[in-house]
């Protein structure tokens, strides 16, 4: 697995740029990954990211888009605006968790 340097951190990422170990995640990594996706993180983004991190810690798996919209109380429209071009993948990458396994 390739190793990337983000600030003073060295993290392992997979071929698609996802963190191999979700526990390596730090807010700096989120900022760096978001920047690569062309996203400047706002409080609203952090609400989503924090929800996803918490969900992953509690359930051992990443939330699907619907689990985010329902669970974090963020309308579908807003989530797609916050993370344009595919929130399912982008949110997971920025939050340092694996791609969601569910379909909805």
């Amino acid at each position: 697995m390739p190793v990337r340097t983000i600030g003073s951190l060295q993290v392992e990422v997979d071929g698609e740029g996802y963190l191999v170990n979700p526990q390596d995640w730090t807010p700096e990594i989120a900022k760096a990954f978001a920047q690569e996706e062309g996203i400047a993180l706002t409080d609203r983004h952090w609400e989503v990211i924090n929800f996803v991190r918490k969900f992953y810690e509690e359930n051992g798996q990443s939330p699907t888009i619907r689990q985010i919209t329902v669970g974090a109380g963020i309308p579908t429209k807003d989530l797609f605006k916050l993370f344009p071009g595919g929130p399912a993948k982008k949110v997971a990458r920025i939050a340092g968790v694996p791609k969601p396994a569910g379909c909805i």
Partner: protein
Amino acid sequence: MAEQTRKMAFICSKGDLDMAYPALIMGWAALGVGVDVTIFFTFWGLDLIRKSRVDNLQLAPVGNTSMRTGMMGFPFDIGIPQIVGVLPGMTAFATALMKGKMKKLDVPPVREMLEMLHDAGAKLYACKMTVDMAGLKKEDFLEVVDDIVTATDFIEMTEGAQIVFI
């Protein structure tokens, strides 16, 4: 991004409850990974976007060889004779069974899925010819429907898209 956005177009031609979900679920999955989605509803598929029909879609056991006892929660899995399927109430029973199973998986009802798709940026169109054939008007359809378009319009607007016919 240098590469062009992938595009998918789904044609929904069936109005049964079980045939409603494939396009909606695949379309939703596509939107989640940044694919541009267009859905064209034609013939019986118009039922999916009709205000009067969307909450009443059904699953008929008649002619469906995949509906077996295992699905009904029995411990054995054998085929159900077609003649049982024609009994009054069997379609309602099969429909309720499928809705229950979908709910357990946290799959929203068709109306809600259409709203999700619309909110996520999918374009939803009704086929003009079948709309005319059925004597329907724009107001017969859900608000999430973008427009009533001809087959030619659909073909033109989905240039370069991967097309899935259901």
